[in-house]
């Protein structure tokens, strides 16, 4: 699991550029499933009985938040704007990777402590990135529209916790890949599509279009959920190491949710629950309302520091959720078609 996650988290794939992830997904699923892309940039892997009536979709969005280059000034500074819900507090004086013709390291501009208290109001309109290179060189290497991501290394903390960027939602993608591995030699009673969906962070585009096109009978969405940490309310979060956070929401199917809960108990997972009055804030909101409607459930990996370069998840939670999903699929989903 660690190796899968490592491979996915250091990769690019800011929203709108998900096909940059195609090779990584193909390599990880080599010999397990066939992988294809579609019009919206989704990456889809199919397993199981292609003629089965029952079709289950497992979804994890593969895009990551980032910045996009919008302007280069005559001193070579790069102006950038957010793609997705960037946490502006994470930017000042952080190292970034500018994904141009050649990748270059840069730093997000700030005013130094000798001249400011660092309490200027953060604004999405004043993000400048410094490469230290002359404008001519920057223009040679970087084009408007190129992606920028926060520099981050894969860090192992205590208790199999991992800290790195893009765990939202590469950890979900890793769970889907691990689930596919677990199902590799199984004879499945259904067809299963693993959808590594595009543009969740901007508009949940890929979840909607892929669900429409695939017309699954049921879907389970794997995303990250708020882990308990200082300042996060208990009712909105789950414990790291609890196994997973199961969502309960009016937009979700009770059959699917109950089956997830039932399997979690069988596996002795102490899952926490997140109850939502309306939508879940995940791809499930789009998938469940796609086409003629899709029975949908959500299980999330507890994650601290979401949308930073140092998000945290537990490998143990990810392994448990992979196992749960593999049983869900092996047993043909929530109900027989």
């Amino acid at each position: 699991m660690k190796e899968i996650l490592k491979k996915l988290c250091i990769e690019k794939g800011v929203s709108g550029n998900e096909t940059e992830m195609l090779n990584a997904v193909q390599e990880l699923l080599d010999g397990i499933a066939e992988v294809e892309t579609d019009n919206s940039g989704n990456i889809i892997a199919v397993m199981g009985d292609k003629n089965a009536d029952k079709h289950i979709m497992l979804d994890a969005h593969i895009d990551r938040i980032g910045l996009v280059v919008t302007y280069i000034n005559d001193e070579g500074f790069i102006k950038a704007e957010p793609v997705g819900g960037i946490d502006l507090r994470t930017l000042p004086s952080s190292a970034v990777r500018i994904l141009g013709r050649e990748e270059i390291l840069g730093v997000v501009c700030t005013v130094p402590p000798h001249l400011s208290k660092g309490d200027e109001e953060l604004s999405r309109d004043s993000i400048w990135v410094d490469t230290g290179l002359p404008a001519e060189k920057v223009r040679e290497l970087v084009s408007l529209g190129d992606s920028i991501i926060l520099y981050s290394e894969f860090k192992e903390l205590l208790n199999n916790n991992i800290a790195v960027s893009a765990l939202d939602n590469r950890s979900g993608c890793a769970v889907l890949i691990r689930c596919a591995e677990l199902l590799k030699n199984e004879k499945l009673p259904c067809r299963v599509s693993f959808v590594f969906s595009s543009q969740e962070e901007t508009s949940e585009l890929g979840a909607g279009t892929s669900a429409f096109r695939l017309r699954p009978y049921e879907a389970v969405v794997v995303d990250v959920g708020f882990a308990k940490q200082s300042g996060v309310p208990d009712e909105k979060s789950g414990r790291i190491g609890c196994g997973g956070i199961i969502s309960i929401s009016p937009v979700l199917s009770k059959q699917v949710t109950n089956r997830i809960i039932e399997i979690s108990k069988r596996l002795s997972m102490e899952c926490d629950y997140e109850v939502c009055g309306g939508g879940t804030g995940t791809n499930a909101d789009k998938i469940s309302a796609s086409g003629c409607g899709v029975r949908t459930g959500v299980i999330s990996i507890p994650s601290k520091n979401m949308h930073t370069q140092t998000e945290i998840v537990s490998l143990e939670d990810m392994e448990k959720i992979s196992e749960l999903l593999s049983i869900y699929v092996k047993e043909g989903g929530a109900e027989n078609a």
Partner: protein
Amino acid sequence: MLDYELLKKLCTADGISGNEDEVRNIIISEITPFADSVTVDNSGNVIVFKKGKKTPDKKLLISAHMDEVGFIVTYINPDGTLKFETVGGINDSAVFAKSLKIGKSKLRGVVSSKPVHLLKADEKKKCPSVGSLCVDIGAKDKEEAEKYVSPGDMMTFDSPYENKNGRVISKAIDDRFGCLVLIEMIKSELEYDMYFSFTVQEEIGLRGARTAAFSISPDCAIVVEATTASDVPFAENEKRVCLVGSGAVISFMDRATIYDKEYYKLAMDCAEKLGVKAQTKTMIAGGNDAGAIHSSRGGVRTLAVSVPCRYIHSSDSLAVAEDMEAVYAVVRATAKRILEI
């Protein structure tokens, strides 16, 4: 060319004020074969004497500090996360979401806070204060964390070092660059005898330089530093202080020192004669070990030559090799000239 591999070694070594051991050990092993005397004083400063071809009638000290800004663990929370304080001047904006190395074992941790999704609109526009943050090491609770961490442990930024296309991005360029310049001088043949000090605790009040200058008792001194460049798009004119790419920074005044006027002119003149770029600061900002050295004993004529450095006191500062080479050339030439007047 300066030894940039050594700069990498120095910058990636960890040493906040009061915890300079790792840096000191690197320096001692680098210079010992080339120096006539190397001692570590009670404060932890490394004091070096190197003979030149001639013995001058004045005692010149060249100084750089070993410590970097960072953090210190103050308390372990019941949930196993760490409370901490800054050591040296670090803005709140440079802290949240950064990776850190903790203690001698270099345990990994990250600076954590409530995720952006759960913030009120006004909270999203302001970086959280250091006091409101904690460091997560993945421990389950206080008891587990205590096995790995103790209050008083140092924490430093865990960030990349890159030297590419003639520019360096790293933590601690302030002042491992200065240490590099001194090491290079000690390794080279000198015209005159000189003293060198690699000082401790600059970032918390110029403390090592005070004792080093007292015990060496120099007549004149050159401080080699990295200084604040603020030439970024949202700062203009004099607010830019000094400019990356415009050469060695020779200060006439900062918050801690009014520099010796003759030495200031001498250094500018040396740069011109060498054909290397030099500039001065356009704001009275910052301060360095010169503040302690120039006021030592009966007074020491003092000069500071610095590399302009953006995002100083953060995880990722930026400087260019061209400026670094200019500083080295100016320091060497000015040291000689000072001893000849």
